[in-house]
């Protein structure tokens, strides 16, 4: 994806980070964003494939996962406030 000039970069680039860091980076950004906002995360850690959807379930967010080859892309749409 890096070679395409107009390809959108991620909001959270967690490539190379091990669990639980991808979820922590995502959660930290999410605390500053309103419900309905969309956050794009790139991650390479196999644990993120389970943990990002599990975190979304616990927090009431929705997620769509796409396999981008080198990494996975997680498009998270924030639900209502976590608490």
């Amino acid at each position, binding site marked *: 994806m890096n070679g395409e000039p107009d390809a959108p970069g991620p909001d959270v680039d967690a490539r190379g980070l091990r669990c*639980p860091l991808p979820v*922590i980076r995502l959660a930290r950004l999410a605390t500053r964003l309103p419900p309905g906002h969309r956050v794009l995360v790139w991650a390479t850690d*196999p*644990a993120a494939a*389970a943990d990002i959807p599990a975190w979304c379930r616990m927090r009431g967010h929705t997620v769509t996962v796409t396999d981008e080859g080198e990494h996975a892309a997680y498009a998270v749409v924030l639900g209502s406030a976590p608490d």
Partner: protein
Amino acid sequence: MLAAVEEGWADPRRLHAEARTARRLLDEAREIVATGLSVRPPELSFVPGGWGLPTALSGLIHARRRVGDVVVASAVEQEQVLARGASVVPVDRLGRVDLDQWSYAVRSPGVAAAALQSANGEVGTAQPLPRAHAEARAHGIPLLVDASASLGRLPAPVDFDVLVGEATSFAGPPAVGLLVVREGTRWALPGPRREAEFGRAEAAPWVPLALAAAEAWQQVAATREADDALARALVDRIRATAVGIVDVEVVGDPVDRLPHVVTFSALYLDGEAVVHDLDRRGFAVASGSACTASVLEPSHVLAAMGALTHGNIRVTLPLPSITPGLEAQVAAFCTALPDTVTALRVAHGVEDL
């Protein structure tokens, strides 16, 4: 055990007097374990530890090689089952196999056998064996039940064609595996017929080990119901403690499960860090997380259930007979756990997320 070494050292397949004594002792051991499993003695073989599952699979697949070699298996089976190019049936959030998809999978073409655990040793959830067996049987598919996590802890399974277990799961010696092939089940190993254990093992077991396994079975069976009640009460206490901590999810079925296993995941924590902190406080627990460099893949069981794989902790309660003060240890653990989780979250700056 020492008497068994004195008397049972000989090869039980030989004809001299020591060998006859060894043969008698092995028959006694087999009779005890077979009775406990409600099977006939010739249906039970002692195999080397860890060899029950691969041997059971080889025999089932070879016997049905003209039909196919696909093994239908739940997504939470042991890796060595899933690695055989299995047709993987998903589980629900509690870790229980999806019976509709199981039923669909066992009637697909090319299926040699189906494999299902009696209960999962990592999260404790028990599987619906009667219905899974009935579905498989209706389509002529033999069911292999992996009881290695539940033997001695739950009533022995009855819904199976082939059963495997390990003596260690009922506090028996290491290196003793159990393999039961019900009469009438199509089962045959490739290659020349094996000499020992009704054609299911390369060599006769070392008789003192088999006797020790039988002895362990008798002791565990005698107190199983009381041990079960105590373990469930203690696990319920740990579950309640874990549920009470913010962003800790308990994993697995709360009721239909192994009595002595409880698993939970703490959001934003590295499982290894929790293990080390609890170890420092004197508690030995395990983790299905993969946050350290030693393991790349997280627990496939947790992932299949849609559970958090990081911050994961598994507590396996030992049998009370070999652990004096078990209740006091659990009480101390329940006091320490919230402190551990809170302290680690503060240390990593994630307590506000």
